[in-house]
């Protein structure tokens, strides 16, 4: 029998930096996490936290002036951080698929979608032309596109935003990838369409036994989708744990602050709890803890020493000298 907690991806102390004229941007600075087979992990945090750069690093899509400085990205045992561009080219699409906020990142505006789907299958399967066509039609139907056979000849611009994202998901799933990296896949969509797409993504992932990293700024989306959450702040993991536990009982003051600043319809307050200040300039991070200028729990130690990500209890960790005690906020 297959072990359910078998690890598919292990990211270990990943550092991805950008060397710009204005200084070095340590966009991802010592990030570690692991992802089990079949697991959906939410990668969350405010903009600039390094979420997308983590995703791009896994996909081998970091271009100059960016560079993976150190660390490992072990995908089924193979270190992608050291893989050649040729090897990554084979892995992308086939083993690891990606879905971005703007579906046009993945679609070619000049070709009908049927041709783009067919290419994916030609590259990654040995089906003949008829077999491929049948697969494409079935996949389009699967993602909720009606009259699929006719739509094969349509160009991307002939679809609405929500429909285009469905096409992207269909293409992504064709090769039966083992890992899907979805970066804000529904952020540009309306809520009723978002609900449809999230449901579709979850079903596709579960049915094919794939794993997924869902990158989003929206904690509510993660609450509905993910098994585990990893919270990033200034390029570092500040908290990790099972979704429900992290949301109901956050340990890191940043996670607690984020959750408290979302208006809660079942507990309406006249004023929202707010995190003071703003994310610091990543090129001029404070000494000690990156969150200390905004943290209500900060003490002298926080200015001296940067906290390490430490296990709080089995399966949960936080990087904080004075973590919020259990029992919720």
């Amino acid at each position, binding site marked *: 029998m297959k072990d359910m907690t078998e690890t598919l991806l292990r990211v270990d102390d990943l550092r991805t930096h950008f060397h710009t004229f204005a200084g070095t941007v340590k966009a991802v600075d010592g990030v570690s996490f692991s992802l089990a087979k079949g697991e959906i992990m939410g990668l969350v945090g405010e903009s600039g936290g390094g979420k997308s750069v983590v995703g791009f690093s896994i996909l081998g899509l970091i271009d100059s002036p960016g560079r993976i400085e150190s660390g490992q990205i072990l995908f089924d045992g193979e270190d992608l951080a050291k893989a050649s561009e040729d090897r990554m080219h084979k892995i992308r699409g086939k083993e690891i698929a990606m879905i971005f906020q703007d579906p046009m990142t993945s679609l070619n505006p000049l070709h009908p979608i049927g041709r783009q789907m067919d290419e994916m299958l030609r590259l990654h399967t040995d089906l003949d032309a008829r077999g491929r066509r049948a697969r494409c039609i079935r996949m389009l139907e699967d993602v909720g596109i009606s009259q699929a056979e006719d739509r094969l000849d349509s160009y991307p611009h002939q679809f609405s935003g929500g429909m285009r994202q469905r096409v992207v998901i269909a293409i992504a799933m064709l090769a039966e990838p083992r890992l899907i990296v979805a970066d804000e896949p529904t952020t540009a969509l309306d*809520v*009723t369409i978002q*609900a449809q797409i999230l449901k579709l993504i979850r079903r596709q992932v579960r049915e094919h036994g794939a794993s997924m990293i869902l990158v989003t700024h929206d904690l509510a989306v993660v*609450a509905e989708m993910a098994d585990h959450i990893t919270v990033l702040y200034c390029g570092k993991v500040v908290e990790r744990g099972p979704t429900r536990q992290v949301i109901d009982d956050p340990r890191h003051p940043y996670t607690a602050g984020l959750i408290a*600043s979302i*208006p809660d319809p079942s507990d309406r307050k006249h004023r929202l709890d707010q995190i003071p200040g703003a994310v610091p300039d990543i090129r001029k991070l404070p000494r000690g803890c990156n969150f200390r200028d905004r943290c209500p729990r900060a003490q002298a130690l926080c200015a001296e020493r940067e906290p390490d990500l430490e296990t709080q209890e089995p399966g949960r960790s936080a990087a904080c000298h004075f973590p919020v005690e259990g029992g919720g906020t």
Partner: protein
Amino acid sequence: MTAMLEVEKLEQKFDVSGGLLDRLSFSGGRILSPRRVVQAVNGVSFDVQQGEVLALVGESGCGKSTVAKTIARIHNPTGGTIRIDGQEVQGLSDRELLPVRSKMQMIFQDPYASLNPRQRVRDIVAEPLLEQTGNRAEARDKTEALLARVGLNAEHAGRYPHQFSGGQRQRIGIARALSVNPRLIIADEPVSALDVSIQAQILNLMMDLRDEFGLAYLFISHDLSVVHHIADRVAVMYLGFMVETAPRDTLFAMPRHPYTRALLSAAPTLDPAKKARQIELTGEVPSALSLPSGCCFRTRCPFAWDRCAAERPALRDTGDGQQVACHLIDEPERDKP
């Protein structure tokens, strides 16, 4: 008491036919020139009382911004009336509008696009007031006080918009709107582009200012948790129609229009287990270029029957300050899955 804002049967159509040449097409040897008209707002009525927050919600393209811009007279309405503090404003010239502008100001989703990049912050903030009074000394003093009130300092006054973060730019936009002591602020997705921690700061600021100055807001948003937090009353739009309005708690506890119900059940929440019973929608919003007959929502409504295609439901009082445009009100026995 006069309502701060009254909108009656507001209509906004945009002719997007293009030039004559674009319109020429041939059919059976005859030249046709079809007009293409976007029916963005289709007879919408609502009011905002003094000191009240009315939230306008609905998905993109449903006409929220068009309503806002038409009230702010960025567009001229193609039909209906708009009264601000009792005075009709449609058809007024720019000069006649000037005193009205001191009662009503607008803030936008993207403060960057709405702030002149070549102006310093102090000039941006002072501009509406100078337009009203021409008094530079007064404008200067007031600007300093306003910047302090929204959480910016004197040093910020000399900078340009690009030197600020998104949240700070929204503070500048708010200070500018406040400069003329308005009593109504039309806020079009003012926090939608901000990270949640910054969003909370801006929402708190807007609520504090409301308490302090007795402001009324027409607050446009697509985020229902934000709406629940800030609104006294909520108005739901779909495809340019108003489909439901109700006091906040009523709307969230007992939404009656099928679209409102679908919207509430689609919105992701931190606690999915507590979520309302799902009405799931399929399909997408029809084009505003060719509206469906009858009910605007019928192409996606799980309850639709033949009457819905034949007859457009009017927005009707259903008691307790709630108004709904749906035939189910007459035939509640059809309200079953």
